[in-house]
């Protein structure tokens, strides 16, 4: 497996894992709270734990991969890898635009309400875009060569 594909798998797995835990917990907090107004302190702690977990996992796994990869496999991105990443980013950006647009509509139609939910919708759109990006990179490396 190429070095870039391994790196994409790490980021894909970490974002997927953190998102799979964070967003359902956030949604549950909304649904089970009175008037859909969950505790701000709880939501803040949840977000902080998710961010810290994401950063620590990314750093540990990427640094570990770097040191366990032979130097000749760690060469800079070549033209094909740059092209794969550019195409994956383009597709991920489209998904981000769509969700950001939906969020904007929600904010306009419900001003002042659901602010925390809308904020998390933006974070979700970023997470989804990153998952799509790394998923496309993995696909191109795995099935297009």
């Amino acid at each position: 497996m190429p070095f870039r594909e391994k790196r994409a798998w790490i980021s894909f797995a970490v974002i997927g894992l953190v998102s799979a835990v964070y967003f359902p917990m956030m949604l549950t907090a909304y649904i089970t709270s009175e008037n859909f107004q969950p505790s701000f302190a709880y939501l803040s702690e949840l977000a902080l734990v998710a961010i810290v977990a994401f950063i620590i996992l990314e750093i540990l796994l990427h640094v570990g991969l770097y040191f366990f990869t032979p130097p000749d496999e760690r060469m800079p991105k070549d033209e094909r890898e740059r092209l794969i990443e550019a195409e994956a980013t383009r597709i991920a950006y489209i998904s981000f635009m769509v969700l950001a647009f939906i969020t904007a509509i929600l904010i306009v139609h419900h001003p002042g309400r659901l602010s925390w939910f809308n904020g998390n919708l933006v974070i979700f759109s970023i997470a989804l875009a990153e998952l799509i990006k790394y998923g496309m990179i993995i696909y191109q490396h795995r099935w297009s060569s």
Partner: protein
Amino acid sequence: MTDVGITNNIRELRAANGDMTQQELGKLVGVTRQTVNAIEANKYSPSLEVAFKIAKVFGKPLEEVFQYKK
């Protein structure tokens, strides 16, 4: 990156040049082994620069290494 109209005979040239590996060729032209594999399988069309570098490694003119088919 799908099948392209450009074909090549890089695999045969590698075999004729002391059984050069994809990794060795990749190192000489500045691309990964996977990219060399993708080029040989006609899954990826290299840039002009890389194409010229590959031809230079084998000491052949460009059109003897890469062929364009409609």
